């Protein structure tokens, strides 16, 4: 049967199981929107294309499905770039459909023309310009397959207007075959056997896990491995929620703002088992002194992650979930009781580190941001979905909330994108209309995409935005305090931000404010009880810092604790 390009796209999206689109229309893509108008997808009209991608990203992280974005050509497409780069750095599956001017005009500097395939080449997993309608359904099939398989990532499909309008015979390709793309899923059996051998020989093993645990849905396997052998677990920012934060074997986050015991454990460990993590500079600190005593096992689906920064003794390329379950099944045949007993000393050492220094702050007359997050944790029992912006708010949200389950902590880890949290909260709430979704924000970050309050109100998405308002670009201020002689160049927002309560009300959301510590819990309770979007302005200590802190480029045991 003949169909137009736009109709083919709708059919393909249905076949891929898409139920939600985040979109923003415009001239070149109008034929597709004309078709989408009667298509059976939930469609969320955002207020800026960057937010469309962040929302699709939040939707994808929370649900595990591919997020889908539809925008127009030129500025519509270029506005998505930050969102795409954010998703690329954190390996989030998204399909971005961009309108494009007709093929006959490409290259002529036509109105709203941008070479978006050229622009996004280095920040997509792959991208396509559809030049002939006969390729359209194959490209869409490939795009979704590439986005969600292997190491996931964003895939962009550029759709010239004539392709959307032209007709062709529609035949949905049932299978994908890309000879240059065959991700390795099963780990090498010999390597797995050697890994088990190394693990059972170790005295101070440490599991260092990242976002790969979450994207491969390997939390259960990780939990069983850690519990069976008694191996402590430290998580990267991206790995939070991959292992229950309240478990006795959880050391919390490691790295620049990691816990004292996690960073000390890395320095003292004799076997580091990295799973779905990529040895980012924010994790390792000074590379030469990272895990100096440890042999390193690295399990990762992406071969380029292995030995990129840290020399690995035993690499295993493959899907984390499959490899961990293989290890677990092989361990059934091993005697592990005495190994576990042997870790007693290691566990005691970790307890000692915890006794020397644990996350702490002094609650004074003015609200401390840590107190806000801690109370959120208590009131929600670790069951909410949190999104964050970037900077101090992100680090406090990582340190003081105990994430119990995967896909409950959504944050821009790799790119560090301010303006991510609010649209990501919208995406998560769309995926889970009945769950509590909290967007942790700063007064700076909030203003990078605050227009999305209109989206939340339009679709009655009851997100709670908690602004930790310190009147500064807080993390910039902290660096200026520590490393730039307290010269606060361009980092103060004191007295120049809008009244966030009134701003919320202007959008039709609810605005609340807390200025004293005793108001924090009542305000949170009230916000959680309102089934509408709520913005809470927490007026916090302007000069509170994030501790511990390992200055950039220093070894992990060089932590500033106060």
């Amino acid at each position, binding site marked *: 049967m003949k169909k137009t390009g736009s109709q083919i796209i709708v059919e393909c999206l249905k076949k891929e199981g898409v139920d939600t689109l985040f979109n923003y229309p415009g001239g070149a893509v109008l034929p597709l929107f004309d078709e989408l108008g009667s298509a059976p997808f939930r469609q969320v009209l955002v207020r800026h294309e960057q937010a469309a991608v962040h929302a699709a990203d939040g939707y994808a992280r929370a649900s595990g499905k591919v997020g889908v974005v539809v925008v127009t050509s030129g500025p519509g497409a270029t506005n998505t770039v930050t969102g795409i780069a954010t998703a690329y750095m954190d390996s989030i599956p998204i399909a971005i459909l961009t309108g494009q001017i007709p093929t006959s005009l490409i290259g002529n500097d036509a109105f709203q023309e941008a070479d978006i395939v050229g622009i996004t*080449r280095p920040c997509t997993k792959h991208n396509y310009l559809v030049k002939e309608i006969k390729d359209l359904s194959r490209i869409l099939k490939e795009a979704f397959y590439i986005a969600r398989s292997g190491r996931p990532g964003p895939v962009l499909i550029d759709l010239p207007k004539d392709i959307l309008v032209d007709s062709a015979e529609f035949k949905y390709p049932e299978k994908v075959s890309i000879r240059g793309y065959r991700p390795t899923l099963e780990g090498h059996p010999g390597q797995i056997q050697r890994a088990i051998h190394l693990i059972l020989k170790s005295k101070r093993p440490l599991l260092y896990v990242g976002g790969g645990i979450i994207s491969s849905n390997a939390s259960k396997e990780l939990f069983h491995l850690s519990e069976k052998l008694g191996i402590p677990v430290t998580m990267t920012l991206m790995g939070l929620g991959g292992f229950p934060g309240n478990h006795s074997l959880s050391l919390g986050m490691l790295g620049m703002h990691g816990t004292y015991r996690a960073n000390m454990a890395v320095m003292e460990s004799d076997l580091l088992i990295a799973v779905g993590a990529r040895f980012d500079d924010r994790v390792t600190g000074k590379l030469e002194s990272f895990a100096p005593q440890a042999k390193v096992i690295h399990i990762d689906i992406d071969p380029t992650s292995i030995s*990129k920064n840290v020399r690995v003794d035993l690499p295993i390329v493959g899907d984390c979930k499959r490899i961990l379950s293989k290890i677990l099944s092989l361990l059934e045949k091993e005697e592990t009781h005495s190994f576990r007993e042997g870790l007693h000393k290691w566990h005691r050492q970790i307890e000692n580190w915890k006794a020397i220094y644990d996350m702490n702050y002094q609650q004074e007359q003015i609200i401390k941001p840590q107190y806000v997050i801690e109370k959120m944790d208590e009131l929600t029992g670790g069951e909410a979905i949190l999104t964050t912006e970037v900077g101090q708010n992100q680090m406090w949200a990582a340190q003081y909330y105990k994430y119990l389950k995967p896909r409950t902590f959504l944050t821009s880890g790799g790119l560090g994108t301010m303006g991510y949290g609010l649209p990501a909260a919208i995406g998560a709430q769309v995926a889970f209309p009945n769950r509590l979704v909290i967007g942790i924000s700063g007064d700076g970050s909030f203003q990078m995409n605050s227009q999305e309050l209109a989206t939340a109100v339009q679709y009655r998405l009851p997100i709670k935005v908690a602004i930790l308002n310190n009147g500064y670009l807080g993390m910039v201020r902290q660096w200026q305090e520590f490393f730039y002689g307290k010269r606060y160049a361009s980092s103060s927002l004191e007295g120049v931000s809008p009244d966030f309560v009134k701003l919320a009300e202007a959008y039709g959301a609810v605005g609340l404010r807390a200025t004293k510590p005793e108001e924090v819990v009542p305000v949170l309770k009230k916000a959680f009880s309102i089934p509408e979007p709520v913005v809470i302005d927490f007026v916090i200590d302007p000069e509170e810092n994030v501790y511990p802190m390992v200055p950039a480029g220093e070894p992990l045991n060089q932590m500033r604790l106060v």
Partner: protein
Amino acid sequence: MEFIWSLEFGDWNLINMRHVITLLVENEFGVLARIAGLFSGRGFNIECLSVAETLDPAVSTMTIVTRGDDQIIEQVLKQLNKLIPVIKVVDLIDKDFVEREMILVKVLATEKTREEILRIVDIFRGKVIDVGAKTYTIEITGDEKKIDALLSLLKPLGIKELVRTGRVAMSRGSKAMTELT
């Protein structure tokens, strides 16, 4: 010895090993941009690159000469493999292989030097393919050493222009690239 034909991204480090990498890629638009972008974006250097269709018009073969220490080359190979239109990547430096390059060189030819130029071309089994009033244009094919040697002899006589194709390379023996591991 550096020439204008070399595309350099990042620092030229002579301590680093030279590697000849050959690739099979999908013959589709944008592939060269993806590969060039990978090298520039990650700070790898390309000494030279050549690309053309294979017997199968859907597939192109590329030869890239690059330099780097082991860790860099490992990343180069892995990152190339990660590109979706890249079908196969082989680092020939681990194999026994032949490499060739063709150059066209326009040399000043005076009364005094004409004879000498012809002699040199003969020794190197080159060809004079164009004769001008004051120049010879010479075609010659060979490996890096041969071409460098020829150029060092012609240089004192006056080279007006030089064009190089970049290297092409192939493993020795009966195995095709698709059969190499």
